[in-house]
């Protein structure tokens, strides 16, 4: 089978690198969709999780959100996103995919941010309070910096999941890299199908590695000494 040759030729074809359906545009669409979804999820989940973690209340909620989230299959979320988007008259493509991606990204962020704040050594928090830190200062200067690696781990899980699932957006007439896969499957064009799959897989791995790097960078030498 010369499939690999076909895929290589597909990548080599300059036509696939140009115009509104070209690879660069699809990658940008994919990144835009994923980035926005993670950002919105962060804006929704982080303040709630920080509050719950700082006050030590509602751990039950924060942990259970994650468990429910795990039971929500991506394709089911897309289906529900489609129903919501159409009911609101927002049309196909971008919005149904966003409605699917944001709920997917919330649970890992919520749980990790909550756990990250809770895991900060209570002695350090007490010491800070004794030194006259306000709640806001404790959160900003102690809990967030010390919890950052764990928070980033949650964002990493969310981001990799979102990048993977953004592919399904092509099913509801969205753009992004899923286009190549869905079209390739529909048209039985295996070169396009496999090329799309490779691009999505690479993007997911790059996302994973990027966040792994950020996570490592957020572990300052001082933190190691404290722990």
């Amino acid at each position: 089978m010369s499939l690999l040759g076909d895929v290589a030729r597909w990548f080599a074809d300059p036509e696939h690198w140009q115009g509104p359906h070209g690879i660069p545009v699809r990658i940008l669409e994919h990144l835009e969709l994923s980035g926005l979804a993670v950002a919105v999820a962060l804006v929704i989940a982080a303040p709630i999780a920080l509050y719950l973690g700082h006050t030590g209340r509602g751990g039950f909620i924060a942990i259970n959100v994650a468990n429910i989230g795990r039971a929500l299959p991506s394709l089911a979320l897309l289906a529900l996103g489609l129903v919501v988007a159409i009911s609101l008259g927002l049309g196909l493509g971008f919005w149904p995919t966003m409605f699917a991606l944001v709920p997917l990204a919330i649970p890992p962020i919520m749980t990790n941010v909550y756990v990250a704040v809770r895991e900060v050594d209570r002695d350090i928090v007490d010491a800070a309070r004794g030194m006259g830190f306000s709640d806001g200062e404790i959160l900003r200067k102690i809990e967030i910096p010390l919890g950052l690696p764990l928070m980033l781990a949650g964002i990493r899980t969310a981001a990799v999941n979102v990048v993977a699932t953004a592919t399904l957006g092509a099913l509801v007439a969205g753009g992004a890299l899923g286009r190549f896969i869905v079209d390739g499957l529909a048209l039985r064009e295996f070169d396009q199908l496999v090329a799309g799959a490779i691009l999505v897989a690479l993007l997911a791995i790059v996302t994973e590695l990027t966040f792994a790097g950020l996570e490592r960078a957020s572990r300052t030498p001082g933190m190691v000494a404290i722990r």
Partner: protein
Amino acid sequence: MTPGEPLIRWDWIGSHIGEIAFRVGEHLELTVIAIVVGLVIAGGLTFVGLRVPRLYPPISWFSGTLYTIPSLALFSVLVPYTGLTLLTAEIGLVSYTLLILIRNIAAGIHSVPVEVRDAARGMGYTPRQILVRIELPLALGVIFAGIRVATITTIGLVTVTALIGQGGLGYFILLGIQLFFSTPLIIGALGSVALAVVADGALVLIQRTLTPWTRVR
């Protein structure tokens, strides 16, 4: 989803009840095969990794990389080779169970206290007896936690295999998207969530039966 159309048409559900039952069965079948095969492979790999610690990092890295690859991409790469078949679906589904299962089996066996192992050895247990009679039963709780996560994840992923002609309840989701008809969409989506919740509950019951000593009296 056209205006004026109700979100759920109960008469459609009534007239398709047989098909829904069939798809639920298919969904469970795809899930059970994936978990059982995944357990066998993960068990074997973990066993190798524990015996030859040098091999554990590459095994862990391999299963981690598989897990990172988006499901649709993995299924797509396989289609030209294995077609739109059950095999394609299962290769993908099994791949995604490996990371979770390997981590939990290894963590479970590592959680067995050294003293317990030493005591067993002192009583004349062979390494195989220690594994089967001591380590595995004691690790069962942690292993079951992994099986639960893997099962819930797999039930969700099965819906995606509808795109390669399998899919269980995912079939209804795809049908709903294609026909622009919300009833099957909702049946497929809520059905797979319900299935995950029920399966998780069933696994908890099985675990309680298998590890009676963990029950709080």
